[in-house]
């Protein structure tokens, strides 16, 4: 049963991923990306990563993709015009390079390999996935957790700096060449 579901989600994931990069309309791409994220969330659930699966839908497919869509709409982007030999050549090279990397990776993994040793601490059956995660986050992973707060702070500052409307301080003088404001 899980195998069949996995194959279903996987097919949906691959198909929607392909459409993300193939569809000329950015809005459609974004929507297919949402679909891809949802299928991924399904796969996470199959792997018993319930919390991650939920966060994937709420944060990724929800918040992040809304941001994407908002920007696309805000900029009023139309279908991309993809014509000309130059661009076609570039596309061809892109496909070739990507396929080669994939083939190499698959060949490599086709060799005998083994995942690492099992962790000695078996997850407690009684505790749910979310609870375990929470415990870990605030104990062993406390430091990286705090670092993420810095990362988010930087992101906030960055967005404020780059996207804020008010002009830069003291810009009363004439703009220098190359600065069209």
């Amino acid at each position: 049963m899980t195998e069949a579901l996995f194959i279903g989600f996987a097919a949906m994931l691959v198909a929607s991923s392909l459409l993300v990069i193939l569809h000329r309309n950015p809005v459609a791409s974004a929507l297919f990306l949402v679909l891809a994220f949802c299928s991924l969330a399904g796969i996470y659930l199959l792997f018993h990563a319930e919390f991650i699966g939920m966060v994937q839908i709420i944060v990724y497919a929800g918040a992040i993709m809304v941001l994407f869509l908002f920007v696309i709409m805000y900029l009023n982007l139309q279908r991309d015009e993809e014509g000309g030999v130059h661009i076609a050549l570039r596309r061809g090279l892109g496909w070739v390079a990507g396929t080669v990397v994939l083939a190499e990776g698959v060949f490599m993994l086709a060799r005998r390999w083994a995942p690492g040793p099992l962790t000695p601490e078996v997850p407690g059956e009684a505790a749910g996935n979310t609870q375990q995660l929470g415990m870990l986050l605030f104990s062993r992973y406390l430091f990286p957790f705090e670092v993420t707060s810095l990362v988010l702070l930087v992101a906030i500052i960055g967005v404020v700096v780059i996207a804020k409307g008010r002009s830069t301080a003291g810009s009363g003088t004439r703009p220098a060449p190359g600065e069209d404001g």
Partner: protein
Amino acid sequence: MNVLPTPVLLAVDWWALGAVLALSAGILLLLLLEFFPAQARSNRSAIVALLTLAAAGWSVFHVRDAKREIFGGMFVHDGFTVFFTLLFCAAGALAVLLSWDYVKRTRINQAEYYALLLSATAGMIIMAASNDLITIFLGLELMSLALYVLVGFQRHHLESNEAALKYFLLGAFASGFLLYGIALLYGATGTTGLGQMAAVMIDSPMLGNPLFLLGGLLLIIGFGFKVSAVPFHMWTPDAYEGAPTSITAFMSVGAKAAGFAALLRVLMRAMGDVQADWIPILSGLAILTMTVGNITALLQNNLKRMLAYSSIAHAGYVLIAVVAGGRDGAASALFYLAIYAVMNLGAFGVLTLLGREREERVLISDLAGLGFRHPALGIALTLFMISLGGIPPTAGFMAKVYVFSAALNAGLVPLVIIGVLNSVVAIFYYLRVTVALYMEEPQGEPVYVSWATPGVIALIASVVLTLWWGIQANGLLAAAQRSVLGLL
């Protein structure tokens, strides 16, 4: 839950974490102070940033001999951490001094600028101090995000914005590879901790395990991007050229050193016994990096861009040291990075002084005759160029001597020969700057030098260190050698 570890909050050694704490506090202070709006030419933010960096450096220096593993070994305070923390704080402080007047002239004198600079420094420190791939990744992202924004800080400036876009897109692209590599390494070893990884490898050797090889390779690629190793270097010239010059100075030094710090720690802590696998790859990267960097630099007319290619080439020399490995290899990498930091900050520092308000004069031809109109500036720039070119008796020469001798001891004769050949070629473009300074007449209006005390202080510090380490490098050398002991 009985299986879960007990909270470790009380065990934290706050001194060891002092640098990160100080920087975080400084960032918050900078932002909070914005409640009281400052003048356009206020020095407040710069002073706060400088004090913060000083506090961070001091707090680490205070416990420089201590050795701690905190947060269950995620954050390591050892000689390596101390060395790089001090390096980043020094580079950050010099960058603040160089920014002081430059940001006023370019109209980006905002508290956010300094806050981001401090965040990037914090990210670098976390990268160097982490003993776990998770924290390394987070540190790298912290640094990168701050730098993306700093590169694009002149948001009305087409070049600055373009540089930020390219740096950002390619940086995120490279992060994808890095992350995938970490994921595979996690799969191969069942852990992300470097120490645990090394322990796992003792039980089950990873030789020939494709998961491990692939993971390690992608990791090297990810760090290779940050240190701008060829062929993952393409963003470097564009980002360096478009960024505000003070930021170019900072990132060319800090981001590169941080990338190498993480690379060295990962390779030496976790992958010590499979190093033979990486040697051909890293050697190839080193050769390509040096050669492409130096040769492409030959024809540049923009000094910022030329220095960008030069910084690529320098990454190649450090890669030689990384390939050499062992105590001397790692120590020579640290040694090289410290010296490179000083001379490169100095070279970019001279550029930050050039030009009037909102004017950028960074073409080599802009330097024409500068050496006579401003002899001190000319001598300083000449010194930095000579040092970057590795001509004695400057620090750059000592750096190359140590790297090459470490590589020779490791039996890397071909690599050293190519390195020497490259440093011979490199002299040409460094000397072009000198030629412009002393042997050309300015076309059109000669470049205006905006003297500013903080920038001059930074330049004097760079000049003194470049000369001092060229004449007497033992102190730095001993420090570098002590610092890598924890890795072995």
